[in-house]
C-alpha cells in the first residue's frame, strides 16, 4: 500500500510517500511496524494523540482495519480555514 505523510510528520520522516508491504491488520499495527524501523519513524509516531490518520482518504482512527486498504496517510491535526 501507499503510505503518505504530511506537514511535520513528512518532515520528521523525511519523505512524502512510500510503498509499504505489510501484513498489519490495523493502523495501530502498521504504526508499530514503522516505529520499529528507524529512529525517525519512532520520533514521528512517538505521540499518537498528536496525529491523525486517513485510510483511503477518509479520516478514521488508529483501530481501523487495513484489509483492502490502498492508501494510508498520517498527519497532524488539520488547520484549514
Amino acid at each position, binding site marked *: 500500500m501507499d503510505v503518505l505523510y504530511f506537514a511535520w510528520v513528512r518532515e520528521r520522516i523525511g519523505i512524502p510517500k512510500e510503498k509499504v508491504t505489510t501484513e498489519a491488520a490495523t493502523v495501530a499495527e502498521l504504526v508499530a511496524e514503522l516505529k520499529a524501523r528507524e529512529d525517525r519513524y519512532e520520533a514521528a509516531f512517538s505521540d499518537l494523540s498528536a496525529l491523525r490518520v486517513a485510510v483511503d482518504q477518509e479520516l478514521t482512527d488508529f483501530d481501523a482495519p487495513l484489509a483492502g486498504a490502498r492508501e494510508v496517510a498520517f498527519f497532524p491535526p488539520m*488547520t484549514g480555514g
Partner: protein
Amino acid sequence: MRISVQEAPFDLGKETQAFAEGRKDMGAIVTFTGVVRDVEGGLAQMEIEHYPGMTQKALEAIASEATERWSLGDVLVIHRYGRLQAGEMIMMVATASRHRKDAFEAAEFLMDYLKSRAPFWKKETTGAGTGWVAARDEDEDALDRWTNPA
C-alpha cells in the same frame, strides 16, 4: 454546489457577484472570507500544504452535510494552498438560502468543519523562524455544538 481547491488567488467581488446573481428564490446570501493574519514580528510567508487526493472529497462531504442540515439553494467553497503573504485571502465560503438563518448557520458550520476536518496544514515563517501552526482546542470544541446541540 461548487468546491475549488486552488493555488491561484480568487476575486472576492467577482465570486460573490457570480454566486449571488440571478437567484429570485434566495432571499439571503452569506459570505465568509479567511485572510492571512500578520503575526508579531511580521509574517514573511505562510505555506499551506494539503492532501490533494482527499481535500476535494473532504470539502464536498462537509458541504453536502450542510445542504442536508439546512435549507440551502447553493454552497460555494474556495480554499487556496501554496505560499501566501499576510493580507492575502486564503479561502471563502458562500451560502444561499430563502431566509438568512439557514445561510448564516450553514456558513458557520462549514467554517467550523473545514478548520479541523479538511486536510490543510499551515506553516508560518517569521523573523524568529519557521513552524507549523498548531490546531487549537477551541477549533475542535467548536464542532461539539453541531454534534451535541444544546
